[in-house]
């Protein structure tokens, strides 16, 4: 069995989601190769070579891969897919963008966001915003899979795999990159943070998110949000946690002024410890919270900050 894992990488290097995807590949079992596509990827490839369990790192170094456009990236993967039984990517926005394209070009189904490997052809994946878990069996010879990163703990990085270059597959020229507006933050990344503190519509404004920022800084936490808070323009879209936002499973998740709609719960209910601060004691978020505090957040947050400073 040979497994190709698509590395998640950008100009800054390898992203941690790659380590979760390799963990899923290890659970499948086989010879694991990691494909690093990008521009000037030597350093990233060297990082990938250290991932435990990886037999080989492939690099495709070409400007055409710099912005992870789906069409050239899919063409690249398809050009080397003959040698693999599985193609695995993390279920990040980049992974989700490209893998179905690869699957269709190979005329196979994609198995989206697996949370468990049952056997070589059988996997568990959440459906209905995680309110049900489906065990699905694939009848395709090649399996294209995306991995819910929170379900597969990251593998270590003490290996030393060889690195080999593969030829660029060119640019179909169907789309081009114009620009990006990326959020900058000194805080840990939402999907990798040990603690996440999220605000909802109850925060009332973007300015009020400073109340959360201060606590996040004390705890080394990432800041997230509900869809309502993003829609209202309090915070950028990449803060959204939920069915259609980011899936997080930190040690501690603190939901502040969030009611607990199923779509929000879908993104955080696998957190180890959940705290809810809400003034409505009937709010559904309390049904999943280990510790609930019925309080006005504008009173509770400054108190929390003070208590943590003690």
């Amino acid at each position, binding site marked *: 069995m040979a497994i190709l894992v698509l590395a998640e990488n950008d100009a800054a290097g390898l992203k941690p989601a790659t380590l979760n995807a390799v963990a899923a590949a290890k659970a499948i079992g086989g010879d694991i190769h990691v494909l690093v596509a990008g521009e000037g990827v030597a350093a990233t490839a060297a990082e990938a070579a250290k991932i435990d369990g990886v037999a080989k790192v492939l690099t495709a170094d070409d400007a055409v891969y710099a912005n992870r456009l789906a069409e050239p990236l899919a063409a690249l993967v398809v050009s080397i897919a003959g040698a693999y039984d599985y193609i695995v990517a993390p279920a990040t926005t980049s992974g989700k963008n490209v893998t179905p394209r690869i699957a269709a070009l190979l005329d196979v189904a994609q198995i989206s966001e697996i949370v468990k490997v049952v056997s070589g052809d059988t996997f568990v994946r959440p459906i209905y915003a*995680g309110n049900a878990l489906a065990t699905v069996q694939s009848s395709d010879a090649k399996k294209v899979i995306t991995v819910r990163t929170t379900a597969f703990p990251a593998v270590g990085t003490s290996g030393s795999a060889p690195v080999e270059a593969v030829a660029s597959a060119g640019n179909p*020229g169907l789309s081009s990159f114009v620009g990006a*507006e990326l959020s900058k933050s000194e805080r840990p990344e939402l999907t990798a943070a040990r603690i996440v503190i999220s605000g909802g519509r109850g925060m009332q404004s973007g300015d009020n998110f400073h109340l959360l920022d201060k606590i996040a800084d004390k705890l080394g936490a990432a800041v997230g949000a509900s869809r309502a808070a993003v829609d209202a323009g309090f915070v950028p879209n990449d803060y959204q946690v939920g069915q259609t936002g980011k899936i997080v499973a930190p040690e501690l998740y603190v939901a502040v002024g969030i009611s607990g709609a*199923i779509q929000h719960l879908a993104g955080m209910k696998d957190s180890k410890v959940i705290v809810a601060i809400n003034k409505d004691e009937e709010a559904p978020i*309390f049904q999943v919270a280990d510790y609930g505090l019925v309080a006005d957040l504008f009173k509770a947050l400054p108190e929390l900050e003070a208590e943590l400073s003690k």
Partner: protein
Amino acid sequence: MKVLVPVKRVVDYNVKIRVKADNSGVDLANVKMSMNPFDEISVEEAIRLKEAGKATEVVVVSIGPAQAAETIRTALAMGADRGILIKTDEDVQPLAVAKLLKAVVAEEAPGIVIVGKQAIDDDSNQTGQMLSALLGWGQATFASKIVIGDGSADVTREVDGGLETLTLKLPAIVTSDLRLNEPRYASLPNIMKAKKKPLAEKTPADYGVDVAPRLKTLKVEEPPKRSAGIKVPDVATLVAKLKTEAGVI
């Protein structure tokens, strides 16, 4: 330019679904069904393109049981011009949906296909990308803004790190995200008018597409339940519990 929008009939997003006792699937009997929210957003975007003079006709297509005709009528009531129902009681999976849509595209020749980024029942997030691959067209997924230019479209996408903008050569596929727009409600007169709009009925066989599922669902289970914990009286108790009992801070 014609705009094609696929719409799926799914369990309403407000419904708390239940897994069947025999673990064969999710109980859909007597459950409220609606248009997939992302498809509603796609329909709205298509209508806005027409209202802005960028599109000439909005065609909606649904693949599903006879009742999917209601989903198409909803789109027609919002302002779409014409519907196509590809009737089947099979579980049509994303790859087969993409193949059927490819056949519809061959007949309709749209300038853009706006697809919901995912359906909230199977949460696959595949169809748009697959359709784009099969057609050999460009794609922009998770769109929060579409600006149609001359033979091209600039699409802003919601990505993990923030936002990015791509230029697509048309024809192309765009998949819609939540913040692309806020869909309108259909007015009563428009609901009446929609009843008279054309709705063609087809079957997968008409398009010569094999819709046999590639993935077999062996069982469907409830996820592990999380039980409610305790209420704490104040912030000091909360912090103490997190430190000593939970040990997370």
